[in-house]
């Protein structure tokens, strides 16, 4: 089984559009949406949920007011500024570490588990999908990403699918790291803007750091061809292959408004053709067929 992660560094460069297109092209793959705090892939692939599991990713401190003697030691020892001046727990700052519970001289603090989200296993038209939803404002998205990836792997083994396609979150922090560790390739989707270039460089460094083979796709390459050339030069100098260039076309947004992948909505348009060409090249590079 092979695993490929679509990532970007910068948000909004087209990760989900490309992941959905790959799902259509791959036919029988397992798709994993690892952007667990803002998942969008389900709006294009319409998963039919087969299984839902609670995700208990983090704990939270609870202070028993009748026991509390207001000594303030917990507030002093908490490194996350999660105990307020009137000695209550700020749920948005608490990281559930438990230090307050062990320093409390009267055992007034306990840790309670909270449901931080849900993980789903679903059927899609083109195979299966593992996805999740983190409750708004929850921490520990990296852990939920790991759950989604485990689910995807199990699904792939059970269904004898040869490929897992992972839609990653933006950035390079904890949930992105959880999305790229141990995969066979990372496809960085970038755009020809100053920000896109800057973030691409950091995303490639991240893949190298974790020994993942990088590929690059320049989306909307025609909005600034000078910058696209800069990206090509940068990639060449760093021995990274630019495996696809996709033009700007409002049809991508139209497809999204209609809840479809661009491959289904307008299979003959330039965007669909270029994504298909990129997919073929990627399959060859990774010996997928």
């Amino acid at each position, binding site marked *: 089984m092979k695993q490929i992660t679509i990532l*970007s*560094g*910068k*948000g*909004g*460069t087209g990760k*989900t559009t490309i992941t959905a297109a790959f799902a259509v092209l791959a036919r029988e793959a397992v798709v994993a949406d690892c*952007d*667990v*705090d*803002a998942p*969008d892939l389900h*709006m294009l692939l319409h998963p039919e949920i087969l299984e839902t599991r609670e995700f208990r990713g983090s*704990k939270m401190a609870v202070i028993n007011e009748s026991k509390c003697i207001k000594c303030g030691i917990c507030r002093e*020892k908490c*490194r996350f500024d999660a105990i307020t001046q009137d000695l209550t727990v700020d749920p*948005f700052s608490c*990281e*559930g*570490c*438990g*230090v307050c519970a*062990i*320093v409390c001289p009267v055992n007034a603090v306990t*840790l309670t588990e909270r449901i931080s989200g849900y993980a789903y296993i679903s059927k899609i038209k083109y195979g299966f999908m593992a996805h999740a939803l*983190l409750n*708004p*404002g*929850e*921490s*520990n*998205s*990296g852990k939920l990403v790991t759950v989604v990836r485990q689910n995807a792997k199990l699904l792939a083994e059970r269904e004898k699918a040869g490929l897992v396609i992972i839609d990653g*979150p*933006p*950035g*390079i*922090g*904890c949930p*992105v*790291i959880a999305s790229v560790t141990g995969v066979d390739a990372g496809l960085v989707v970038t*755009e020809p*803007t*100053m*920000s*896109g270039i*800057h*973030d691409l460089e*950091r995303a490639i460094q*991240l893949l190298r*750091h*974790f020994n993942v083979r990088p590929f690059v796709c320049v989306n909307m390459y025609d*909005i*600034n061809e000078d*910058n696209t050339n800069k990206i090509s030069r940068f990639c060449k100098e760093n021995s990274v292959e630019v495996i696809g260039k996709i033009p700007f076309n*409002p049809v991508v*947004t139209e497809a*999204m*408004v209609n*809840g479809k992948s661009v491959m289904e909505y307008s299979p003959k348009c330039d965007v669909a053709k270029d994504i298909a060409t990129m997919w073929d090249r990627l399959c060859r590079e990774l010996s997928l067929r």
Partner: protein
Amino acid sequence: MIVAVASGKGGTGKTSLAVNLAISIENAQLLDCDVEEPNAHLLLNPKITRQEPVYRLVPSVNEELCDYCGKCAAFCQYNAILTVPGKILFFPELCHGCGGCILTCPKKAISEGRSRIGIIKEGFTDGLRIIFGELEVGEPMASLLVREVKRRIDKSRNVILDAPPGTSCPVIETVKGSDFCILVTEPTPFGLHDLKIIVKVLEDMKIPHGVVVNRAGIGDKKVYEYCKGKGIPILLEIPYQRRIAELYSRGVPFSLEMPEWTDKFQKLFEDVKELVGN
């Protein structure tokens, strides 16, 4: 006043809005809290006047004192320590730096070392102060660096915070304590879906908020219907224009080349002030 700029979905134009707003108003301080991929400085080319590395505390074990009792491992909620007879293993990438292992160790075998997580840079362009953090590649704990960036808030100025995308920890860390949050969205199903999630977060945190619709004209009308239904004010619309996209791609804040927008950003700031009740 502290105003955060967030979005849920990435790439909707947070940084573009934060930068254009900051250069349009007087006495501003811009803090780029997207430490994973800071971009505001690319549009401003500030003269950097100060750089400071940021460290996090990570435990280090003195194996001569350790008797592998496993109390630290049992305490650690993040599974960052593993003890087996005769061996203790530490996984720094999982450590949140709470310091609990040190408190639980009966042999006082654990002390704290530090590990570099990134750098904070401060500089200025004209009258605008800019501060941004850069997370070290491979370092997962972005929130800590966000917290350090925010320690440099100068309350005597009009503070603009540029948040990372999403709704998880680093975003919460950014918007926490803000007087207002401007949500930049695009009028598409993805934009709306992620907008709803961040609105829920802000409602829970009781932070007043309003929406700026970027790339107005693409997609559909559902963002407008949603905001109307929720009573969320639409503060500004920025139309989809090739010129704006091109300027952004070259790293130019569009209000510099399209000066009619300076007034609109000033008005946006005045409207936010009024909503906050200053």
